[in-house]
């Protein structure tokens, strides 16, 4: 296992992310709801540069028992990563793919040490 200082932890605000090259591999680092996370910049769908996508929110549905219709709410703002190829959505806090449990982001350990964001490969 190798460890890499990517940047100062205070250089990333909530909802920020950047892609760095570590040992020849592209790694995306994220700050989501106060947590630091790192994922391989590779989408399990067709190999797209998923970490270069945008972080935004997404919709969530609840069935209104009164009207029998779906209410759609915008949720998880700055937390849902959308791959620039084909728009697959991933929860950047968990790495889960939102439409299928067969896929997820490839995760790496990320931690803050002495004010630095450190990623382990």
């Amino acid at each position: 296992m190798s460890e890499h200082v990517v940047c100062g932890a205070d250089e990333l605000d909530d909802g920020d992310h950047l892609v760095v090259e570590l040992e020849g591999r592209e790694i995306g680092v994220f700050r989501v709801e106060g947590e630091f996370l790192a994922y391989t910049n590779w989408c399990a769908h067709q190999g797209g540069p998923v970490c270069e996508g945008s972080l935004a929110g997404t919709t969530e549905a609840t069935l209104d028992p009164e009207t029998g219709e779906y209410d759609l709410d915008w949720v998880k703002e700055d937390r849902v990563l959308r791959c620039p190829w084909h728009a697959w959505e991933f929860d950047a806090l968990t790495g889960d793919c939102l439409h299928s449990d067969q896929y997820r982001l490839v995760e790496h350990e990320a931690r803050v040490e002495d004010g630095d964001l450190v990623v382990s490969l």
Partner: protein
Amino acid sequence: MATETTNETQAEFADVEVVDCDVHVSYAENVQRQVAQRMDEPWAGYADPEETPARYRKPSPGLPKPLGGRKSFHVGRGLPHRQMVQEDLVEGLGVDYPILNVIGLVDTLFKTDRAIEEMRGINDVLVEEFLDHDDDYRGLLTLSLQDPVRTAEEIDRLGDEDQIVGGFVYYGTNYQKPAGDPSHDVIFQALEDNDLTPAFHTSNYIQKATHLRELENLFAWHSLALGWAVQEATVSLISQGVPEKFPDLDFVMMEGGVGWLPFLMGRMNREYGQWRQEVPYLEKSPEQYIRDRFYFSTQPVEEFDDPTHMKQVLDIIGTESLLFATDYPHYDFDDPSAIDRFLRQFPEDDRRQVLSGNAKEAFGLSV
């Protein structure tokens, strides 16, 4: 029809129960008259062949007559339809339980009041003139999508008839919203409340898909039209989350064939990945909804140059999703042996499921 062939078919199915999910009560003039007699004025006169010429009763598909010698079972026979069903389908083709529907084209009518009134007349005729005369017959209520509230009332009016097992939408015509439109929820609720199953039957000659009508000939048009309407219904129902809203309903698609299903499952899965945020109420992949909640009638079964390819297609779809259907009395019907040559390549239990077992589950048949 050739009695020699049908007798062979009957023998082939003598030891196996057959439910035919798509048997049409031909909307011949004698049936139209029976319907009109049960309608109130002013609409009865519009529907009565003795008062109104054919060209004013319904929009015409403009088909060449007599279809170049393509002869449907009922043409020129002059028999009561019940007697034809008995002779041709039950005694001839070995069908044990015909599920009847009426293609009355109510959603090709631009007067909603007349469509609703004719829908009611058609359903009374179905019950009184057909189902009440034979315990082995089952029927699907004709449903108009033009006024969902009044159609829901119609389902409640006749839903407790023993031999009524579902609702029948002749789908894809001008005066219909997409199948899954939320305005139709009252219809699905009424069906669920009455333990009835919705069946969407393809429309063909009179469709809102005007680009198909621009195709130059019937070969081209008919190649696409049958599958188009039921694909649209399937996509619309899933995209609106109808299977999630009505967890006790299954959905039947009729006369669209089945060969396109592998495509649609894979296609919708892909679009789901790309557009999930538009349909966040879906709990699983579109393919899983199709496999778990939808049934497809087999007619018109596709015909590949290499017949072994059809077995491969059915392997992908899974026999548990298929319902046997003839489309009697139309000339482009399927003889039971047309699909059975493929079904015989599956285990016997699976074959019997397609010929009757799946239909019993889909329509809750108590036979």
